[in-house]
């Protein structure tokens, strides 16, 4: 049941995603890519739990910690660099 429910969510999100983004002006291709890339860092949620919930020093906790560092780089770097790019796009519209 769990599997079906999760899969259901997955399929619906896929269609939602395809609908949402079907038309993107080429100017925004790079920001869309780096912005969505930052979203893929959502795996940080899993890394947080693994780091905090496992016994310290256990392999699971260490894996979680490395994952946490990497996912945080992905999230923080991704959002900041996207914002930097979009800022450049913005200032020309004055």
């Amino acid at each position, binding site marked *: 049941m769990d599997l079906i429910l999760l899969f259901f969510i997955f399929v619906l999100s896929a269609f*939602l*995603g395809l609908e*949402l983004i079907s038309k993107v002006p080429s100017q925004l291709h790079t*920001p869309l890519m780096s912005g969505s890339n930052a979203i893929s860092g959502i795996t940080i949620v899993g890394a947080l739990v693994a780091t905090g919930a496992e016994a310290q020093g256990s392999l699971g906790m260490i894996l979680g910690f490395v994952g946490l560092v990497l996912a945080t780089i992905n999230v923080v770097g*991704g959002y900041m660099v996207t914002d930097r*790019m*979009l800022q450049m796009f913005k200032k020309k519209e004055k």
Partner: protein
Amino acid sequence: MEARDLINLAYVAAAILFVFGIKMLGSADTARRGNIVSGLGMLLAVVVTLADRSILSYSWILAGLLVGASIGAVAARKVQMTGMPELVALFNGFGGLASLLVAWAELEKLNGAANLLGVVQPVPHFSGVVIYLATLIGGVTFTGSVFAYAKLSGKVGGSAVVFPGQKAFNVLLLLAIFGIGVAFVWIPNPEHAYIFFLVGVGLSLLFGVMGVLPIGGGDMPVVISLLNSLSGLAASAAGFVINNNVLIVAGCLVGASGFILTVIMCKAMNRSLGNVLFSGFGSSAQAAGDDDGREPKAISVDDAYYVLEAARSVVFIPGYGMAVAQAQHVVKELAELLENNGVESNFAIHPVAGRMPGHMNVLLAEADVEYEKLLEMDTVNPMMPMVDVAIVIGANDVVNPAAAEDPSSPIYGMPIIEAHKAKTVFVLKRGQGKGFSGLVNKLFTLDNTCMIYGDAKATISSLVAALKD
């Protein structure tokens, strides 16, 4: 209501913020706000996760967040706009690896729980399958992205590498990954299963490298988009592993957006995804194109200046070479000077010019070129016969008329910017080498084409200096 429910409600809110954020990213007016909205979603997801009851200690979490955030912030601030494709590839790879590690940590947790109970208990099949999937996709994304990063930043050769039996090797590798996965999930002994898991990790890492190996520079926009899509799917698979809806939704949205970009890029080259991924396009083995023996003619910057001075309309066609030469600022200066002299000057942007989707747009935006001056291929082509001078800056295949005229050409059918229809064409090029596809570019030997050899930035700077006098 329990804390668990509150957390899940907050995840729903985060997912909604992602949906709106990504929707707003798709249009110019709202893009920046959209990015912030999706960032808020991320912040919300992280904060409520910290309230999770199962978290015992925060010291390592804090350390991880601080280290990761500082590295990410510095990288995002320091990167030059020309280095953007590399950075995006690298971030992508980190996301993929993080998903792999999350899945692995979950496997450790399941095995550890069984050990505590003192029972030999295999991981449930469903968990096994999704753990393996997340590991596989995450691993391929990681090494594929890092390898793409190395190619883009010139740390390894950027061209396509093919060797005999490559396809057979990759098919075998894929079968092995699949077989090992089956063994991992269905072997009852957890210790043996663990060994299969580790082999699976190794093979998926190898597969990422093998997948990017036969893909050369000009096809990079496709690969980067595809890896982008995969990093989302990896996060989504990790969501199945830890039973978390927000990961599934957010990851899947990224997967979809990356997929759409991939399709757009493939269409812009009129090639199928399979062809891009597997053909080894542009490797030396395939380099062909008939050389009709005509030599391109070169002119000096001074002569180019006289032609430009007499021109009434000019179109710039930038390519990856402009990024390499960091010439975007001087190009903008030249365009501005021309405008001041009453010359209409525009930019023609091919969708796959550069090394990632929208690469040229980012560079020219950095140089402060007005958005209205960036014309897409379909807009600019009908105007081409009226253009006095088309200035090709470090672009090659995207202006090769063979794509339109010569059915025997490997790039035949790819939509191009029809620079050759302009009255005069200047091609700025570092040397006499061939483009990424290894093809002879017929544009270069046309009667109305003049080559200006040398560093694009230096050439444009001297043109600017000449025009100023």
